[in-house]
């Protein structure tokens, strides 16, 4: 290779092959972005259409927007308002319980030596590989026995079982990256184990803990199968609310799209807020 063909060197000019590769790369990126964003774009458009416009391609992009759908979904019989309340309570309840528990468990897995540690950790992770369909019936029967069917507490419990293993695993990774010397130096400085964890380890692993919290919130917020089986009327969450729009009079796409916005929007806001934290956490430990 001649010196002139080294990228980044002044006077460098891309050859035809390199230029073609560049275009291909751009095209690939565009296709992937389109595949992800187009459905969301379509849902957003549909949410502001009157039913007549939903089924005609003439009004695919140009139509008179309406806020009617976003109002209708909060009215009887849809009542998405109460479902939003349920979703918020279940998701935040799950995260508020899961994160402290997961942090403590992760700390133990990261720092303590005890018999069967490896095996136990494996079991925790492996519990995620059990198909939900297998355990949904036992859950149903258990909650029925306990008289907890159609309660938000039951949903929180179920979601805890989903979120905890992920959270333990994620947070453990971040605690592993916290130098033990930091903890030892805090102990020498006079800190008890509890203070070491709350004042040294948790702040140092905070990006990971926030990541796990957001991830757990998202999982719970979107959870469908268990909510479908366990809730009936009082504890219905947003995703279950959406199936209500499939009526015997046909599918009410414009209302479903409006509900879809209500489900997606909070996640969108949350991810924007934690975006920086998230990126920081993904690259944490890569460089000193």
């Amino acid at each position: 290779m001649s010196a002139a063909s080294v990228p980044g060197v002044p006077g460098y000019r891309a050859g035809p092959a390199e230029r073609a590769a560049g275009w291909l790369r751009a095209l690939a990126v565009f296709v992937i972005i389109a595949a992800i964003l187009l459905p969301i774009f379509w849902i957003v458009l549909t949410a502001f259409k009157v039913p007549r416009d939903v089924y005609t391609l003439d009004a695919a992009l140009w139509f008179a927007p309406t806020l009617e759908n976003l109002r209708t979904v909060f009215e009887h019989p849809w009542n998405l308002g109460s479902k939003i309340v349920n979703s918020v309570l279940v998701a935040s309840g799950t995260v508020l319980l899961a994160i402290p528990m997961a942090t403590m468990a992760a700390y133990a897995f990261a720092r303590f030596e005890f018999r069967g540690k490896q095996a136990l950790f494996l079991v925790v992770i492996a519990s995620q590989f059990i198909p939900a369909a297998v355990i949904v019936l036992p859950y149903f029967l258990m909650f029925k026995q306990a008289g907890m069917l159609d309660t938000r507490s039951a949903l929180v419990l179920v979601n805890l079982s989903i979120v905890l293993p992920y959270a333990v695993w994620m947070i453990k990774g971040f605690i592993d990256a916290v130098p033990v010397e930091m903890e030892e130096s805090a102990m020498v400085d006079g800190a008890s184990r509890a203070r070491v964890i709350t004042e040294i380890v948790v702040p140092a692993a905070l990006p990971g803990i926030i990541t796990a919290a957001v991830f757990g919130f998202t999982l719970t917020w979107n959870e469908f199968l268990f909510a479908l089986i366990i809730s009936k009327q009082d504890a219905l969450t947003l995703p279950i609310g959406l199936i209500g729009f499939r009526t015997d009079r046909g599918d009410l796409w414009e209302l479903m799209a409006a509900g879809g916005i209500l489900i997606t929007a909070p996640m969108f806001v949350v991810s924007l807020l934690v975006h920086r934290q998230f990126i920081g956490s993904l690259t944490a430990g890569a460089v000193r």
Partner: protein
Amino acid sequence: MTTITLSGIDKSFGAVRIVRDLNLTVADREFLVLLGPSGCGKTTTMRMVAGLEHPTLGEIAFDGVRINEVPTQRRDVAMVFQNYGLYPHMSVAQNIAYPLKLRGVPAAERERLVARAAERVELTPYLARMPRELSGGQRQRVALARSIVRKPRVFLMDEPLSNLDAKLRVVARAQIKHLAQELEVTTIYVTHDQVEAMTLAHRVAVMRDGVIHQLGAPAEIYNDPADAFVAGFIGNPAMNLVDVEAEGAGVRAEGGLAIALAAPRPGRLTLGARAEDMRIVPASEAHFQAPVYTFELLGEATMATVMVGHTLVAIKAPKDLRLEPDTRIGVRFDPARLFWFDAASGARVRA
């Protein structure tokens, strides 16, 4: 005001015995250096004093009171870690103040003590910074300030200078020595650098394989090494150690070179002499002759190296001497500064 006593300390990690039946008393206000190559058990010994490791056998006592079961945070020790162990989410001031905060010192008093500690290590302009915004030398000083902000019973320093560049190390070493004299706290300092040990210590414990080979004042260890390991570890350059066999009136090195020195006893021995205790002399006065292997200018002196048997032997020479490689030179030992060791065990053989 604390005397540290280690009695019969053994420490094993699994099947590996890191520290073997160690007995050591560090006197009140003494500056003791644990010196040895990596893996010799020096850091483990210090960590047991801190309570970060627990002895498999034996007793650790402060002022005669057993502390084996006392957790680290209640031993009232301060420690400077090799990687400093700073808290990355706290500012320099918060880092230094943390031990005081844990002891419930009121904020105003805390501020005063932090300011004083920072001033002692010249960190005052950096108090508001975060650790990641500091250079290595500054971080090391934060760790130092954090350990001196209160008056602990015992100071522990684990290779605090090893992450600094050579120039900074000399400055920081002087600073630590100055601080130690000022604070008068019982100190254990771990290092593999014999220069640090020689310059800082009241007493040095030279360790290898979990055993203290020699315990004594730096001059004692330098001038009167207990065995070949200590002799070879202390000094720069290290003491010349040549394996020889007593033969007739003299000794013979491996490879056949005859040295005109009377051995203290027959058999295989190791002859030890420091570079500065040998002289380049005319052939008639020489104990042996050999061709120059390399010749180096050191500035304040020169260093001639010759091959004796399979061993390189360094001889310190006046600074204006010039020698070409392969020139045959005569070498004379200072008989008063000559050491004999058993070739197999390394034990000192006194004449």
